[in-house]
């Protein structure tokens, strides 16, 4: 009987379990879960603060998921080392698990720079887990001033989540704009204005360098008082198990479309990995949930002796900020076609006859048609590109292609 071990119990692990079971209903699956929760929807922690969801509704799979899939889950324990020769994993406390194949699905961890005086701050939080969010919720009252260090997706979603709970929210970031990894300055300014209208304050091109109790010392020399501090500077892929075992790693564990690492019988999936982004050809960590599921699934199928190649990974994100939706996909290294209407933003990036990326703010209807062109590498010569830029419609395809799309069963 096959012995499968999965390290981590997030969405990539869930994908891996489902992938294994699609090809092998017998083998034994053991899941090592540092967090003491069944797999839940990590991106929903900010919606939980807001009251748009609650812990009871945030489960990623139903209650019978592990039992139905014959999984043993070890909660509250970390794997501390992996030996690809002995084919074993050692857990905290010394328990050793042997595997035929293992999937490392350890996700990422908040990166906390070495701030001086951080230990003097009483109420400080990161924003990655359900436990983080619950602790933060308990610490904030209607009187609290909250300082969020980091104006990326996580910091801003946290600000939105806290909006109705806290008295005052300030977000600072060393970058000159918010969401700097996915938006250029023009788009970022547009979104920032909207968020500011909700009463959130920003301090950009400035960040905390140290803390003294309830005061942040800023790079600019300013001092900012706060009651609650949230550190959302960035995340780092958890690569050490594979790296220490001699596996190839960049910023993430190196994997191919089958989820294989450079070590035999060792697979990896999700936020802890880096893979090829087909929109740019570059190797990147794509820390997004869809990627985690699909990589996990492919790894699982291959671990169980099947064949699945996840070869169309692209960065993409859809997030609302106080009702304003921002969608981005692909990479922006091509030529920019700006089709922005007055009330929003719509930019397309084109390179060598292919759509490589887009930014949509406020105008997000049917955006998946655009994403499909990137994922499927559709040559723009095969569609009505001028029409596409104006409206996302199936009219951009030939009637023959439409017949396939709407007249047949599709995968």
């Amino acid at each position: 009987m096959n012995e499968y071990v999965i390290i981590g119990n997030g969405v990539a692990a869930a994908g891996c379990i489902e992938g294994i079971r699609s090809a092998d209903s017998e083998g034994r699956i053991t899941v090592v879960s540092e967090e003491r929760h069944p797999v839940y929807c990590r991106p929903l922690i900010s919606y939980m603060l807001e009251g748009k969801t609650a812990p009871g509704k945030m489960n990623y799979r139903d209650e019978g998921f592990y039992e139905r899939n014959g999984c043993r889950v070890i909660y509250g324990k970390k794997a501390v080392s992996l030996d690809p020769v002995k084919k074993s994993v050692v857990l905290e406390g010394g328990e050793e698990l042997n595997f035929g194949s293992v999937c490392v699905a350890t996700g990422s961890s908040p990166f906390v720079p070495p701030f001086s005086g951080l230990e003097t701050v009483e109420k400080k939080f990161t924003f990655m887990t359900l436990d983080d969010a619950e602790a933060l919720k308990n610490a904030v009252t209607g009187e609290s001033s909250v300082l969020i260090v980091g104006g990326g997706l996580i910091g801003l979603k946290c600000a939105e989540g806290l909006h109705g709970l806290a008295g005052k929210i300030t977000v600072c970031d060393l970058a000159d704009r918010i969401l700097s990894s996915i938006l250029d300055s023009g788009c970022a300014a547009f979104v920032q204005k909207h968020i500011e209208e909700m009463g959130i304050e920003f301090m950009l091109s400035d960040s905390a360098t140290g803390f003294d109790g309830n005061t942040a010392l800023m790079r600019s020399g300013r001092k900012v008082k706060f009651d609650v501090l949230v550190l959302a500077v960035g995340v780092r892929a958890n690569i050490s198990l594979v790296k220490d075992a001699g596996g190839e790693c960049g910023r993430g564990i190196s994997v191919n479309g089958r989820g294989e690492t450079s070590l035999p019988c060792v697979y990896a999936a999700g936020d802890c990995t880096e893979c090829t982004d087909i929109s740019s050809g570059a190797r990147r960590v794509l820390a997004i949930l869809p990627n985690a599921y699909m990589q996990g699934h492919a790894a699982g199928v291959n671990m169980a002796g099947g064949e699945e190649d996840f070869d169309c990974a692209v960065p993409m994100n859809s997030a609302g900020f106080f009702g304003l939706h921002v969608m981005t996909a692909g990479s922006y290294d091509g030529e920019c076609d700006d089709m922005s209407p007055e009330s929003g933003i719509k930019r397309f990036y084109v390179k060598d006859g292919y759509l490589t990326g887009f930014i949509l703010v406020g105008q997000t209807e049917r955006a998946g048609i655009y994403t499909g062109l990137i994922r499927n590498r559709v040559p723009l010569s095969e569609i009505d590109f001028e029409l596409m830029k104006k409206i996302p419609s199936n009219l951009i395809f030939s009637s023959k292609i439409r017949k396939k799309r709407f007249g047949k069963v599709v995968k």
Partner: protein
Amino acid sequence: MKRVYVNEEWCLGCHLCEYNCAFANSGLSDIAGLRGRRIFPRIHVEGDEKEGITFAVSCRHCTDPLCVKSCIAGAISKRDGVTVINREKCVGCLTCVLVCPYGALSPGEDGIMQKCELCTENGGTPACVSGCPNRAIVYAEE
């Protein structure tokens, strides 16, 4: 499994399917109740009326759907082949809109996603199909 298919040659572009869909999912007892209201149907007509090309777009119920794999709330799943959404779990992030290559999904009036579930909850033949005057939308095995 039976799905909804469209024959664009026969589509009149009359938008009746949109009204029949909105009505079937409205809980109203009379379609006249939709009068003067903005509707949020789960099917929509696209095309170019001047060119004489129109067609209805609704969920394809893909065999291996991207929306299911991408939903950050675990709210979309497959039930007996039908792609269904649990509106209790959806938070309206629109990731499914970002990934659906058919552009078939749009949110409901409350900003929470809704989708074609082949009228499984409304009993029998999808309302868009039974109300299509020119049989441009059919409900069939492939």
